[in-house]
C-alpha cells in the first residue's frame, strides 16, 4: 500500500449499495478518475445522482477525467474529532475544482507539509492512495502541488 496521509481508523469509503457510485471507486483502484457524465447533455456532475440536474436525463455514465485540478478552497484541521486522529497533528483538506470536468469539485487531502501555506487557485495533480490491506480494499483520491 502507498503511504497513507492520515492515520488509519477513519471510516473507509464503500460504494453505495444501490450501485450509484461504484464506477468511481473501481476506477480509483486503477489509478483513474472517472466521474459521472450525462449522455443527454454531455456535462459532468458530482456527486453522482440518478438524474442529470441540467437536462433531467436518466441516461448517465462515468467517464475518465484528466487527473489535474486547482485548489478552490482548503482548510487546515487542528482539533481531532475522531479517535483515529488523536495523534495526527494538523492536516490539510482541499476542495479541488476539475477544469476538465465542467469545474465539478472533489474533496481530498493536500499531501506534503501540513503546515506549509496553501494557495487558492494553485494547480494540483491527483495521487491515488491505495489501501490494499483494508477489508474491503479501497483507494482515496489525494492531491499534491503540481510540477513537483
Amino acid at each position, binding site marked *: 500500500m502507498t503511504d497513507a496521509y492520515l492515520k488509519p481508523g477513519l471510516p473507509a469509503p464503500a460504494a*453505495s449499495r444501490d450501485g450509484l457510485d461504484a464506477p468511481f471507486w473501481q476506477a480509483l483502484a486503477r489509478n483513474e478518475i472517472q466521474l459521472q457524465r450525462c449522455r443527454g447533455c454531455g456535462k459532468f456532475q458530482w456527486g453522482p445522482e440518478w438524474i442529470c440536474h441540467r437536462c433531467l436525463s436518466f441516461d448517465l455514465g462515468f467517464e475518465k477525467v484528466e487527473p489535474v485540478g486547482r485548489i478552490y*478552497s482548503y482548510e*487546515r484541521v487542528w482539533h481531532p474529532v*475522531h479517535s483515529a486522529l488523536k495523534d495526527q497533528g494538523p492536516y490539510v483538506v482541499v476542495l479541488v475544482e476539475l477544469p476538465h470536468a465542467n469545474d465539478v469539485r*472533489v474533496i481530498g487531502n493536500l499531501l506534503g507539509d501540513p503546515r506549509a501555506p496553501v494557495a487558492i487557485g494553485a494547480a494540483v495533480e491527483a495521487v491515488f492512495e491505495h489501501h490494499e490491506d483494508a477489508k474491503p480494499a*479501497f483507494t482515496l483520491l489525494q492531491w499534491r502541488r503540481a510540477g513537483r
Partner: protein
Amino acid sequence: MTERSLRGRVAVAGVGQTAYYKHGESPDPESKLTLEAIVNACKDAGISPRDLDGFASFSNDRNDGPRMAAALGAKELRFSNMFWGGGGGGTAGAIENASAAIACGIADCVVVYRGLAQGQFGRFGRGAEIRTVSGDGAYTLPYGLMSAAQMFAMKVTRFMHEHGVRQDALKSIALASYRHAQRNPAAVRYGRPLTPEQYDASRWIVEPFRLFDCCQENDGAAAVVLVPAERARDFPHPPCYVLGTASGGHYRAAAPSHNAPDYASSHFKTVAKRLYAMAQLSPHDVDVLQSYENFTGGVLMAIVEHGFCAPEDVNAFFTLENLSAPSGRLPLNTSGGNLAECYMHGLGLTIEAIRQIWRTSTNPVDADVSMMIAGPMVTPVSSVIFGSEATR
C-alpha cells in the same frame, strides 16, 4: 402586496426555556427538559398546555409532537410538523411553519420547541466512529472532513479569500456574544468574559475558526407559543408580531461533495429578499439582530447576505463597537447567542429576538423591529422578523 403573506397575522403569546447547561451537566433527560420548556412557555403566556393544538420543531428533534401532546394532555392535536433539514437552519423555519398553520386556520395555538441534550445523545462536534461509509459521506469522511466546523470552514475560507476578510472580523462577532452574555445571568458563559487576547491565544479548531469562533455544546430546551394576531392582547406581554419569514436555499445549495455553484455563501441570498418583501422592510429598519452562530464565519456571511453590509466593507463593519448593545450600528446576539448563552439550536436566539420587542432583554435595545437569522451554510436556512405594535 399580495394577500399571500404572514405579515402581522401571528403573534407571540409566551416563551419558555429550561436552565441551560454545558453538555452532560443537565440533571434531567432531554424529553423532560423539552416538556419543562413547553410548560414554561405556557406559564409565560398564562395558558394551559392543554390548550396547545399544534407542535412544530426542526432538525429531527427526537421529542415528537404527538408524544408531547399526549404527555401534556393537549385536548386536540391539529398541527404536527417537522421542518426538514439538519443543523439550526429550521429555527425560524419552524416559526414559519407554525405561523402558516395559524394564518390558514389549521391551528390556533402552536408551540415551536427544541429539546437538545448533547450530553445524553452525543456531541455534535465529534466525527462518526463507524467502520465504513457510503454515499455522500464517502467523499468527505475518509479525508478527515467530518464535523460541522470542518464542513463550513471550507466555505468561509473561500469567502474570506474572495473578499479579503480579516480574522479580526470573526473575532468581533465572538467578542460581542461574550460581552452580551456578561449581562445575562441565564447564559452558560455568564461571569466568563472573553478578552481579545484570550481569543488570539485560543487554539485553532480548524482554520479560520479558533475555539471561540465555535458554538458551545449544551443541554437544555426552549419553546415559543404562537397565536393568531387577533389574540395578541390577551396575554401578559405586549404584542409581538411575526412580520415576515423566509426559508430555503439558492440553486442547488445542497449539492453533494461541496458542489453548490454559488459556494462561498451562507445560503441566504434568495431567502433574505423574500424575507424583506414579506415584512415590507429593509435592512435599515432592523433595530437588533440575532444571527445564529454555528461558527462566526457563517454569521459574517449571513449578515452580508441580509444586506447589512457590503462584502467589501466587512473589515470596517465588523467591530465590537458596531455589534454591541445598546447603541452599536447593529447590536448582535444580545443574549450571548449560541457562543455564550446556550446552543439551543437557535431557539434561544429566537426568544431573545422576541424579548427585544418586549423590552425584557438584559441587553435592551429600543427595538420595534427585531430579526433572527437561523443556521447559516446549511440547507434549508431560515429567517424571521418580529415587530412591535408600532410596526403592524
